C-alpha cells in the first residue's frame, strides 16, 4: 500500500527503525526471558547464585542447540524430525564407547558432529535432490535413527566419560558455565554463517525457492548444506545432553522433538520460512526451560502447569507477530 509514496519524487527510506528491528528480532524473546528471570529470582533468591545459573544453562544447552539446528531448517522452509534420532544416537554412542580425558572429549565431539553431518547428508539428499517433502523424509530418517540407537544400546545404561560429564557441566573459575561457552561459540559461528553467501541464500530459498533459483542461487546445494549444518547442531546437542545425563538412553532425543519447534516459534521464527534467527530460537529454548522453574517456584498445582505452558506459548507468538506487523507498518 506504499505505492503512492514510491511515485513521489521525494526520497523514501522504508527501513524499520532500530527499535522496531530489535523488537521484531530477538529483542522480544530476550525481554520475556529477563522478565521471567526476575519473577523467578523474586520467588527464589538462590536463583542468582552462580551455581543455579550454571545449572539452568546446563539444562538449557541441549534443547538450545537442537532448536538452533531446527531453526536453520525452518528458515529454509522445512521441518526436521530427525533431530530426535540424531541426539539419541550420539548419546548412546558416547555412553557405549566412552573416551576419557580432554583428547577423548575432542574425539567424542567430532564423532557427534560426524553422526549429525551424516544424517544431515542423507536428509539433504532426500529433500534437496530427490525432492521429498522434508517432514516426510525426516520422519523416516528419525525412525531409522531411533532404531539404530536401540541397536547400539538396548536399555539405558553405559557411562559417558567422566571428563566430559564433569568438565562440560562445570564452571570456569567457579563462575562461567562451560555449556554457556559452547552456546556462545555456536552463536558466533551462526553470526558468520548468516552473513555468508550460504546464510543469505538460506533466507532466500526459505522465502521463494523458484525466484532464488532464477536469481542464480544453487538451491540444491544450499538446502543440502542446511541439513548438514543442522545435523551438526543436533550432534552437538547430543553431546551436551550426554554430558549432562552422564549416561546413555536410546530414546533420550524423543522428548526434545516437539520442544525444538516450540522454541523456534517462541523465537519468532515463522514456520513458513524466510524469517527468523538462531539466537532468538536459543532464547526461546532458554525461556521454555526457565518457564518450568518459574511455574515451580510459583507453586502452580502440578496438574495444571501444562495450561500455563500452552498459554505462554500462544501469547508469546501472538505478541511477537504483533510487533512484526508494527515493524512492517512503519
Amino acid at each position, binding site marked *: 500500500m506504499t505505492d503512492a509514496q514510491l511515485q513521489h519524487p521525494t526520497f523514501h527510506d522504508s527501513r524499520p527503525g532500530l527499535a522496531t528491528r530489535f523488537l521484531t528480532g530477538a529483542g522480544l524473546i530476550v525481554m520475556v526471558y529477563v522478565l521471567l528471570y526476575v519473577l523467578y529470582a523474586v520467588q527464589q533468591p538462590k536463583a542468582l547464585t552462580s551455581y543455579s545459573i550454571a545449572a539452568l544453562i546446563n539444562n538449557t544447552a541441549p534443547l538450545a542447540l537442537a532448536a538452533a539446528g531446527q531453526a536453520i531448517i525452518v528458515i529454509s522452509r522445512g*521441518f526436521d*524430525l530427525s533431530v530426535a534420532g540424531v541426539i539419541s544416537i550420539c548419546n548412546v554412542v558416547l555412553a557405549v564407547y566412552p573416551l576419557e580425558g580432554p583428547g577423548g572429549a575432542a574425539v567424542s565431539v567430532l564423532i557427534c558432529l560426524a553422526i549429525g553431518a551424516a544424517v544431515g547428508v542423507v536428509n539433504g539428499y*532426500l529433500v534437496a535432490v*530427490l*525432492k*521429498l*517433502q522434508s*517432514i*516426510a*523424509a525426516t*520422519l*523416516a*530418517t*528419525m*525412525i*531409522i*535413527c*531411533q*532404531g*539404530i*540407537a*536401540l*541397536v*547400539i544400546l*538396548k536399555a539405558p545404561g553405559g557411562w559417558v566419560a567422566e571428563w566430559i560429564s564433569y568438565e562440560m557441566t562445570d564452571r570456569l573459575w567457579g563462575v562461567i558455565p562451560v555449556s554457556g561457552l559452547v552456546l556462545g561459540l555456536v552463536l558466533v559461528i551462526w553470526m558468520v554463517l548468516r552473513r555468508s553467501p550460504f546464510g543469505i541464500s538460506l533466507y532466500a530459498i526459505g522465502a521463494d525457492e523458484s525466484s532464488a533459483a532464477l536469481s542464480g542461487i544453487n538451491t540444491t546445494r544450499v538446502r543440502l548444506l542446511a541439513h548438514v549444518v543442522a545435523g551438526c547442531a543436533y550432534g552437538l546437542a547430543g553431546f551436551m545432553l550426554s554430558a549432562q545425563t552422564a549416561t546413555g538412553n*536410546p530414546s533420550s532425543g524423543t522428548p526434545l522433538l*516437539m520442544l525444538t*519447534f*516450540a522454541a523456534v*516459534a517462541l523465537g519468532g521464527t*515463522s*514456520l*513458513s520460512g524466510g524469517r527468523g534467527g538462531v539466537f532468538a530460537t536459543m532464547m526461546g529454548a532458554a525461556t521454555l526451560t526457565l518457564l518450568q522453574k518459574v511455574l515451580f517456584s510459583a507453586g502452580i*498445582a502440578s*496438574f*495444571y*502447569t*501444562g*495450561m500455563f*505452558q*500452552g*498459554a505462554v*506459548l*500462544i501469547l508469546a*507468538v*501472538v505478541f511477537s*507477530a504483533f510487533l512484526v506487523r508494527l515493524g512492517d507498518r512503519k
Partner: protein
Amino acid sequence: MTATSKTATPETGFTQTGDTRGSARLTRETVSTVSVAILCVLLLLSARLINPALGSWSQVETVLVLGFFLVVLSFGQGVVILTGGLDLSLPATITMGGILATSWVGAGNPGEWYLLPGVLAACGLVGLATGAGVLWLRVPPFIMSMAMSIIVASGLLGYTRGTPRGAAPDAAVALMKSQVLGLPTPVVALVIFAIAGWLFQSRTVYGRYLYAVGTNVDAARNAGVPVALVRILPYVISAVCAGFVGIALVGYSNGATLRMGDDYLLPSIAAVVIGGSSILGGRGTFLGTVGGALLLTILGTIISALGLEFGLRTIIEGSIILAALLLLREELFQKLRGLGR
C-alpha cells in the same frame, strides 16, 4: 480434476484450433492413490514369505479393524493439511473423547444417544479454539495446535486427577465388537467412511474450497471463497474425528487412559503424506490417505511378526516408509505422465 484429451473437445474454440499439442491424461492424484494401493497389496502378499499365517483374510480383518482408527484420524488431519495447516492436538483430543466417553457416559447409560454427540461437540470446541487462534490470532497452526494439545492434556490430567474412571459406553463397544454382514462392524464402517470422506473432499463445493484455500489463500479470497469458514472448520472436523476415535478406542479396549492418543500423531501425518498429499496444502486425495493409513497399519502387523530385536525392526519399518515415499515421488510421476502421452 481428470484430464480430457484434445479429441474430447471438438473444434469449439474460436481461436488457435490449430494448436494440436497434446495434454496431460493422468493426474498425480490418481497415480499416487493407485500406487499406494498396489504397495499395500504387495506388502500383504510379501508377508506370506515371512510367515505363512500372514496375508490371510484374518490378517486383513485385523488390519482393517486397527486401521479404522488411523483412517478416521488422518481424514481430519488430511483436511487440515489440505488447507495448509497442521493439527498436532490430535493426541489430546483423542484422549478427551475417550475420557469423556467413560466418565460422562460410561457403560449402560440410557442417555448415551445424546451424551456421545455431546462428547464429540466438546471435542469440536477444542478444534474451534485451535482454528480461531490460527485465523484471528494468526498463530501458526503448528504452534497453535501444539499449545492446545498441551493445554487440553493438562486439563484432562487435572479433571481426572490422574485416574480415568468408568467403562466404555455400550454404543462404543457395539461399534467395535459387533458384526455386520459377517464382517466386523469397524471394517464396514471403514469402507463407508472412506467413500464418504472421498466424496466430501473431491466432490463437494466445500471440498473444492479446501483445495482452493490450500493452494493460495489470497487468490481463493479474491475468487469469492468464504476463507474464514474454510480455514476454521477443518480444525473442528479434525477434532471431532479425533474425539470419535477416542470413543472408538474406548469401545475397543473398554477403558480410557490419559496417554491413549499419544501414538497416533506422527502416523496420522505420515498417512496423509504417504497418501500423496502435499504437507503445504492444496494437493492430495482422501483415497490416497486411506491407502497411506492402511499401508502403515499393515507394516505394523508385519513388522511385529518379524522375529528380530526391536531396534532392527524399527530400522526396517523406517526404511520401508522411506521406500514408499521414494516410490511415490513427484519425478517418477512426471515420467509416468510422459508415458501417458
